[in-house]
């Protein structure tokens, strides 16, 4: 039993390298993968190649026959567009700000939940609910029931502290959107970090306790280093998901006032579907991809590391 278990990962890793597999067997093994692969290429890669092609054209949908090849002039326009720069900065602030706050809050919640208390399962279920709520519904909830200046719950709660009547969404549009995002993403970070805490070897913690280490130094010297991989993963995954956020911006502020709370997905949407400028929005899409590639490269490496670490452990 143990022998077969130890052999398995090795056998898997070498499966491709062993010359014993002939071509036919290779295709038989690859075969089940092909439909999914072809489907994914068609749905995700071909549109992207088209985006590259469109980005080199001047093309507005409202003016039929306006399509012509203009090389990189769309890109030039993108980089000289001061609104684009504001929006790019908004995207960075919105994405990283929300992710980092969500990670910190998620860590605190995970530490709270990583102990025995009555109704722990119920509390966990309550906590993950914001993450599950349809983002459009959550955005509506924030815009009206929570942040409405006269009738919103937040201002009602703040009234005794003299904070009533604040027009959250008009005065702090970016922060309002981020509040909704943090509310939705803190539970995800909590779940991720809780999984990290629960994978900690208990004997180490026991040893630290026996040695009389304080809770804080145990946390700093044992827990935090162990959680590092999970925190990194949370930041990276959160960034990948949140850089694409559209629903909350669309529902809560429409990117306004001006472009004060617009992020890149919303700005490109405006250019493409309200301005019908296909060439421009395609060029912006390409720029977003290049920026994302930088982050994704880092992300892939991190996931690969977790993935190979998992194989070592298997």
């Amino acid at each position: 039993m143990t022998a077969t278990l130890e052999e398995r990962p090795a056998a898997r890793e070498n499966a491709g390298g062993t010359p014993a597999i002939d071509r036919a067997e290779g295709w038989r093994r690859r075969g089940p993968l092909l439909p999914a692969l072809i489907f994914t290429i068609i749905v995700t890669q071909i549109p992207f190649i088209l985006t590259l092609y469109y980005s080199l054209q001047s093309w507005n949908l409202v003016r039929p026959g306006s399509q012509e090849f203009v090389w990189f002039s769309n890109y030039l326009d993108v980089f000289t567009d001061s609104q684009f720069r504001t929006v790019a900065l908004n995207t960075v602030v919105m994405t990283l700000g929300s992710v980092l706050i969500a990670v910190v809050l998620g860590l605190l919640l995970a530490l709270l939940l990583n102990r025995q208390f009555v109704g722990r399962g119920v509390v966990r279920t309550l906590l993950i609910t914001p993450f599950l709520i349809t983002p459009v519904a959550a955005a509506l909830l924030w815009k009206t029931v929570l942040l409405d200046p006269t009738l919103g719950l937040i201002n009602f709660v703040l009234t005794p502290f003299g904070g009533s009547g604040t027009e959250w969404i008009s005065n702090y549009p970016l922060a309002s959107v981020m509040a909704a995002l943090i509310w939705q993403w803190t539970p995800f970070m909590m779940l991720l970090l809780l999984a990290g805490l629960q994978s900690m070897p208990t004997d180490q913690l026991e040893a630290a306790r026996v040695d009389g280490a304080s809770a804080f130094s145990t946390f700093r010297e044992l827990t935090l280093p162990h959680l590092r991989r999970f925190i990194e993963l949370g930041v990276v995954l959160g960034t990948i998901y949140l850089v694409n956020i559209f629903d909350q911006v669309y529902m809560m502020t429409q990117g306004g006032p001006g472009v004060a709370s617009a992020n890149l997905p919303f700005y490109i949407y405006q250019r493409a579907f309200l301005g019908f400028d296909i060439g421009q929005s395609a060029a912006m899409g390409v720029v977003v991809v290049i920026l994302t590639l930088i982050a994704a490269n880092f992300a892939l490496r991190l996931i690969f590391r977790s993935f190979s670490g998992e194989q070592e452990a298997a």
Partner: protein
Amino acid sequence: MAVTTSTPPDTQAPAAPPEPRRRKRSAANVWLGVVAWVVGIAFFFPVFWMVLTSFKTEADAYTTTPKIIFEPTLEQYEGVFSSGVGPYLVNSVIATVFSTLLVLLLGIPAAFAVSLRPVKKTQDVLFFFISTKMLPVVAVIVPIYVVVNQIGMLDNIWTLVVLYTGMNLPIAVWMMRSFFLEVPGELLEQASIDGAPLWRTLREIVLPIISPGIFATALICVIFAWNEFFFAVNLTAANAGTVPVFLVGFITSEGLYWAQLSAAATMAALPVVIAGWVAQNKLVQGLSFGAVK
């Protein structure tokens, strides 16, 4: 798996002594438990309030001092239905169910190929799948719109089915791969020695073992498909609109129909909240592409 078989001797040893210690810390534990409850309720409260408001009359919902005691009514739900949510619900169900089925149809064999019987190239394919999730949707929406428009598939629910399948397939392959890796290897070896064809090995040996994992994967696909808004709002109109698109109508009537808005939002969110509660133990595994169990 090898780790779990080797750990029992280690974990048994320290289990006995810490009993008195635990009692000493129990007072702190109780307080931290209370804190956890308070925070949990605070996070959940907006959702609770939304559900509560959905049972109010508009007059009860629209007060400067929030009302907790009121006479519950179902009139808001009736109102949502009479304002025509029906077709949107049907569209959401079609898009969710069929895209999830398609994901499983394409994803199960693919996950099988990359996990249990991999050849060298399949590992590259695995990373290709994950890299597509890092491609921002905004970068592909323009050509998708143009192409879908040209082939006359705008405002057609099957367009969303295809796109949602593409959106969820990479996550599903990675997630199911991590479940497939938990299948004992000797079972498969036995099957291949017996000369069983591939599909029978899959159906009779592998599927029963990983069916809980497949179920969790399906639930996560359901959540993403049901919640999706970006494709839906850009590619559909009156015919193929989904529930999130229906909710957009409430931004314009802001402040006037809070109770009805809450009823609509509750209806939109309820199916996925339940799916998520059921799948909560596998949620992280799915969203982290199987990197975290």
